[in-house]
């Protein structure tokens, strides 16, 4: 095959792939950004990070699941459930602490930070809505404020509401 020649399979794949429009890229961007405000998604990410930290610590210390189970005083199945199927597992803080301490680690306290606003299409639309309406909707409590983003990004249902679309 020549350098610039593509396999028929790759050529077919590229041929069947439509060029994304700006609107589609924006749509994807809005959907991905909105996940930062999805409690289930955020919780899953935190759980995933915890499991990964435990797996790294086990690797560093040369501890396998059987040894961890013995050290922790739990069954091998219980350890397996936590480490392999973490998505279905809801850890209690007790579990997080005791499992971490079994590996000589101390979890840091959960740190709370303000959520960053995401500029979605709906947020942009809201920013164009008059101050009276924004105050009525409790988006902003400063009558002189002309901020471009609402203080809290709530649901996207306003975007679908045609009366707000016409206001924008």
């Amino acid at each position: 095959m020549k350098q610039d020649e593509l396999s028929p399979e790759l050529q077919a794949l590229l041929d069947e792939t439509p060029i994304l429009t700006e609107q589609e890229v924006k749509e994807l961007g809005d959907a991905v950004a909105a996940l930062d405000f999805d409690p289930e998604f955020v919780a899953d990410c935190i759980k995933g990070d915890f499991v990964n930290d435990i797996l790294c610590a086990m690797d560093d210390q040369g501890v396998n699941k059987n040894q961890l189970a013995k050290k922790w005083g739990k069954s091998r199945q219980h350890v397996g459930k936590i480490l392999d199927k973490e998505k279905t597992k809801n850890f209690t803080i007790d579990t997080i602490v005791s499992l971490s301490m079994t590996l000589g680690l101390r979890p840091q306290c959960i740190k709370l930070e303000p959520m960053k606003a995401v500029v979605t299409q709906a947020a942009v639309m809201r920013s164009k809505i008059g101050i009276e309406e924004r105050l009525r909707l409790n988006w902003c409590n400063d009558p002189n404020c002309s901020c471009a983003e609402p203080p809290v990004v709530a649901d996207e249902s306003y975007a679908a509401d045609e009366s707000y679309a016409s206001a924008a």
Partner: protein
Amino acid sequence: MRIELQDIPGLSDEHQTEHRIKSLSLNGADRARTALLNWKKDYGADWKKLIKAICYVGTNERKNLKNPAYVKKCDNPKHGDVYELRANRCKLRLFFFYDPTDEAVVICTNDFVKNDSRRGKSGGQDAAFGLCAEMKNIYERSTL
């Protein structure tokens, strides 16, 4: 051939502290981002899981990517260093490789849906890994 790296839209810096996640576009055909857009519509719950896997790679050093539930290296030596992003009980797969010129960049190439009857026999997972490897070679040649 026009070869470009595109950002995954909406993915914040907070989710890319260790790796920048990019999508490879060949002559404007951007398979990974197209798949992400389509999956959002067709596989909402699984799409969310896959974005989580992307965030996992973005926020962890390569040596710390220990969880095979999210990242798996291709076990066919013929394809070389190519990987798949996945999640537990998730049908979706997004293939990627590490940028040879900068290992802090992850380049997503193509997609695969497990048990997708529309793909037929020719579109198996190993074939998808093969396409990723081919796209990796094209990209590597362009960086020489």
